């Protein structure tokens, strides 16, 4: 049963930077009319269709500007689609807000009240959602998230990670059936990110909470999500389990190569070799991760490197990861998990 049903949803926004460019270039007499005529629409979402089942953890992966937050806002009723339908608990449009006690949300770019302490913020939202015995519940969550020392401080003193933890507690207060998380682990240190992932998994298992999360982090999606959708430039490129998506590259070989005296000429030579489908840098510039074409053999690629006098320091042949699948599908990298 689909708790979230997204049916052929499209959404466009006016690109203001484009307006300015057009106005500057505009030599017409009636600038005001030109201003309106030239306002360009940018498609944030383009005929997106998928559904999220009850009790599922569904991940939406995509780079900045892919349309992840737009979609999250639609699910919680903050935005309406231009075309198509967004159904949450079988409600759409303004009626989604009528179900607001059944879901909650965390936006990476939304804040708690900075004039209040974390605890005061949580108490405020508890009252707003009509939660009984909220003081005990708040205390329990504060302890679980290890923010007891910060609970009485004003939220403007919090680090990104501390603020995020309080935002997640806020989202858990009404024991939601559906949790919408827009990049919930962004800015958190590794330990806390792992802890939150673990907690979300437990919540999902124990209380059957449906989780819809958007993320940059492949590792997160791979670990947490039952299903993943890859979103790029407003379009869904692929939906499936992480295993299925990684399976897209099962026949492609992934080779990590470290080359001495690496430069742009070397890079061009490798790209034009005829063996390479995609490549990306890893950490230091000398190390690259190469996805070979289906027809290419690893031995042939190594021979090519030797023939071209490229001094290889190390070479590794690997199984494809979700990040490789993403690179394969979109042609671009996401934020590396190493930055977590």
């Amino acid at each position, binding site marked *: 049963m689909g708790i979230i049903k997204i049916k052929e949803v499209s959404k466009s926004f006016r690109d203001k930077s484009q307006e300015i460019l057009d106005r500057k270039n505009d030599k017409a007499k009636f600038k005001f009319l030109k201003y309106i005529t030239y306002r360009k629409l940018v498609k944030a979402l383009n005929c997106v269709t998928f559904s999220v089942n009850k009790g599922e953890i569904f991940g939406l992966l995509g780079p900045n500007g892919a349309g992840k937050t737009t979609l999250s806002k639609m699910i*919680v009723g903050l935005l309406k689609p231009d075309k198509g339908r967004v159904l949450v608990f079988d409600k759409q449009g303004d009626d989604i807000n009528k179900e607001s006690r059944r879901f909650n*949300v965390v936006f990476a770019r939304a804040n708690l009240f900075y004039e209040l302490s974390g605890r005061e913020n949580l108490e405020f939202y508890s009252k707003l959602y009509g939660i009984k015995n909220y003081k005990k519940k708040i205390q329990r969550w504060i302890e679980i998230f290890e923010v007891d020392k910060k609970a009485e401080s004003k939220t403007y003193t919090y680090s990104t990670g501390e603020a995020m933890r309080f935002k997640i507690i806020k989202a858990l207060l009404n024991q939601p059936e559906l949790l919408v998380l827009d990049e919930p682990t962004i800015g958190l240190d590794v330990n806390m990110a792992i802890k939150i992932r673990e907690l979300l998994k437990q919540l999902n298992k124990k209380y059957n909470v449906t989780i819809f999360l958007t993320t940059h982090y492949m590792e997160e999606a791979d670990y947490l999500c039952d299903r993943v959708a890859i979103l790029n430039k407003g379009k869904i490129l692929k939906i499936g389990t992480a295993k299925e998506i990684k399976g897209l590259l099962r026949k492609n070989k992934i080779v990590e190569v470290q080359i001495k005296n690496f430069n742009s000429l070397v890079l061009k030579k490798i790209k034009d070799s005829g063996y390479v489908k995609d490549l990306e840098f890893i950490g230091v510039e000398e190390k690259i991760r190469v996805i070979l074409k289906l027809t290419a053999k690893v031995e042939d690629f190594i021979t090519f490197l030797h023939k071209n006098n490229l001094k290889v320091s190390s070479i590794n042949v690997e199984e494809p990861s979700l990040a490789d699948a993403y690179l394969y599908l979109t042609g671009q990298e996401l934020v590396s998990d190493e930055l977590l």
Partner: protein
Amino acid sequence: MSFFRDLWILTILDFKRYYTWSERIVFDVLLSIIGFLSFVLVWQAVFKGGFEGIGPLTKDNFIVFILSGSIVWEFISVNLTGDGIWAFIREKYQGTLPYLLVSPANKLAFVYSKVMINLFKILINVILSLFVAFVFFDINFNGSILLAIFSLLLIFVTFSGIGIVIASLGAWREGIANVSFVLGSILYLVSGVYYPIEIFPETMQKIFFVLPTTQSINLLREIVINNASFLNVFPILSYLLIWGIALIILGLIIFKKLEKKISLLGI
């Protein structure tokens, strides 16, 4: 030299930020003209022998005249220039609006909550003003206290519609919220808060007289200075009620439109 260069850059920046909404310039010009005109007319009246005999003002009732004007203005300005008009804008910039809009909170209650805190502040101000007036000056309030309180509440409700309009439009274009300050200042000068509007030329008086702000001030003055009964002030009460209903309906329509716009364009 870097001081002058930075001064120039920062001034231009503030100029751009200040005049983001071109209509504000019109209101600013209007305010300078009316501001200057009202002060000239006030001093003209003073040099011609004072305010005695101009409108309802006399030497005996001038403190009650001023006090009633300022009390009514507090109840009007709380909606016109108070925190309510910034309800959406502040939350939008602090990034707190998404959580509030997603929550089950009634959105209109959210706007009114911003007004309520100011209402509490002005109630304290009014009590303190009355206390100072009674302690330091020998004043007498005539008329029904209950009718005066009822009138002030009606005035507050009447102008709350404007508050919703400005808050809603302000969320869409912040310049509108800025303009409300200038508009408030103009109304303050032309509604006879501290002097009778009779000091203005006759044609202007006719325009200023029909303003709900002027009528609100007249209403309280009729009650506390002329000891008017409910029936005496019924025409003014009805007039304000009609304004109130019209403004609240307009406010709710614009508020609904804003909600729709937010849901289409985002916060």
